[in-house]
């Protein structure tokens, strides 16, 4: 078995996802410790030019599987390319982003190469003996586990977006590009994508957003979400909601954060008129910074928050938006 680290670099709308750069940054450190190289995999159609960026972020080698059949993601095709690549190159560690796609792909690859997988990790690294370890939340974040791997190789993990820091790129660094032969017959693909329905806007998806502004029952009605959207706009944030706001029909279920909604991990989470029920906290408590605006000083959200204002959000939020706009304008 080798001592290299392999990162699956997910592409969306012609761009490499940030989580891939996060994994490359951490992967680089691990590869150095292991004395192996760091490689990345690109899959899709017309994506070869993206290899350059991966090199700048630390990849020594980029495997490019560029083929029309890989244009739209299908688990069967992607899993086959990935499993073949792993079997041929025998990396020590393989990393995936814990995105919807990554969570669909990684267990399948794990089954095909018969190895273990730690899913949805919030941290990864090597211990003093050079053994790969992964940290992941369970019970919706009520507990955490540190996992290591038995002898099965490679060690695989999917890593939650925004969990790892990105190191600055080195513009002078170039990766070696290795073209991958794609041998996929139509029989290999057993699921057909009939239609692609887009329901989300231009904003980054909640699960990958760096800043989220969420509203709950305290918003009082759908019209007041305009305040949240304005604040989100100045911050470049994505709008989220509590289940109470979704159940009331003010927001769609796509926006729901929590145990039965999306699990998010932004740098900054601003909760407006959200009490902080355990099921909501389950979805956002790993946020780096939490700000709460709630008129009830006893609301449980304040126990998780770094900053809070106890007042009427309908008054606070517009002022906050203006103040942040001013600060941003000052640079």
């Amino acid at each position, binding site marked *: 078995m080798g001592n290299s680290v392999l990162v699956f670099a997910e592409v969306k709308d012609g761009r490499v996802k940030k989580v891939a750069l996060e994994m490359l940054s951490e992967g680089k450190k691990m590869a150095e410790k292991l004395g192996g190289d760091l490689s990345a995999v690109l899959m899709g159609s017309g994506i070869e030019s993206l290899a350059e960026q991966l090199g700048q972020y630390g990849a020594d080698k980029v495997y490019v599987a560029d083929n029309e059949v890989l244009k739209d993601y299908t688990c069967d095709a992607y899993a086959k390319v990935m499993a073949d690549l792993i079997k041929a190159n025998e990396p020590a560690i393989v990393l995936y982003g814990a995105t919807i796609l990554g969570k669909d792909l990684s267990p399948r690859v794990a089954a095909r190469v018969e190895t273990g997988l730690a899913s949805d990790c919030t941290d990864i690294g090597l211990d003093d003996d050079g053994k790969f370890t992964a940290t992941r939340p369970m019970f919706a974040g009520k507990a955490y586990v540190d996992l290591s791997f038995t002898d099965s190789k490679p060690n695989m993990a999917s890593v939650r977006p925004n969990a790892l820091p990105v190191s600055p790129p080195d513009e002078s660094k170039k990766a070696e590009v290795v073209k991958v032969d794609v041998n996929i017959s139509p029989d290999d693909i057993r699921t057909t994508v009939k239609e692609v329905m887009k329901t989300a806007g231009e904003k980054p998806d909640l699960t990958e957003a760096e800043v989220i502004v969420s509203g709950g029952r305290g918003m009082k009605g759908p019209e007041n979400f305009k305040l949240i959207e304005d604040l989100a706009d100045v911050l470049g944030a994505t709008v989220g909601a509590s289940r109470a706001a979704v159940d009331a029909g003010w927001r769609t279920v796509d926006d729901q954060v929590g145990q039965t909604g999306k699990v998010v991990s932004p740098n900054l989470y601003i909760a407006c008129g959200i009490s902080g029920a355990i099921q909501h906290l389950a979805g956002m408590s790993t946020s780096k910074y939490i700000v709460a605006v709630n008129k009830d000083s006893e609301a449980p959200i304040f126990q998780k928050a770094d900053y809070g204002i106890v007042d009427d959000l309908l008054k606070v939020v517009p002022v906050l938006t203006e103040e942040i706009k001013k*600060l941003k304008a000052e640079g």
Partner: protein
Amino acid sequence: MNIIVCIKQVPDPEIPPVKFQIDPEGKKVIPPDGVTPVISVFDERAVEAALKLKDKYKAKVTALTLGPDSAKAVIRHALAMGVDAGVHIQYEAAGELDSFGTAHVLMKAIEKIGDYSLVLCGRQAADWDAGQVGLLIAENLGIPVVTVAKKVDLQDDKLRVESVIQDGYHVMEVSMPALVTVSSEIGLSRLPTGIGIVKAARVKIENLSVEDIGADIPEARCTELIKLYVPVRDIQCQIIEADTVQESAEELAVRLREAKII
């Protein structure tokens, strides 16, 4: 058509954090006193998805669980919701299996039940949140899989599944047999009815051991638990107080800027 739904019993995720306790030495969650374990929420939605198909087409739905003696309760729950049959693979140490072990046993059980067109699982279990078992079962059975379904229906002799993607959903067509993992977007699960509960009590749950189904509990786990712990968030909330809303909002913006958060 025959549908098999895999369901899991988990400690009630609704319990408040104060009641949530772990045994760090034994690396186990201590079942909270007086709180009955429940069917994992996404699995309950998977049962709902199966019953929606049964409402519309002719289908026989079998609920399958792997777990200790107490896990029978989730089969009873599914029966009361309206499924037709229940199979319980009784294994007291089920909690110690990793995703691979669990998927292996369930795969064997599904083969034993046989003659299925569709296997449904929850998107992930509400205890370990790993989201692997469904995919691993499909891979072991050699059947196609679609994950995170918000709608499951038939079209001609194929499955038509709406599967959630990052910015919307895919409409997928899959031939059967297939496995689908179900998400909460499928809609609320029906509640067991009085008649359902009475009927459920009369159904004999098939009780099998891992030996009965020819599963060989994999000796080697792929992953090992080093440590289990409850996270501490050591922060004191800075409540921003000022005379006017204007001032407090201004102060918050300034503090966020000073801390380089925005």
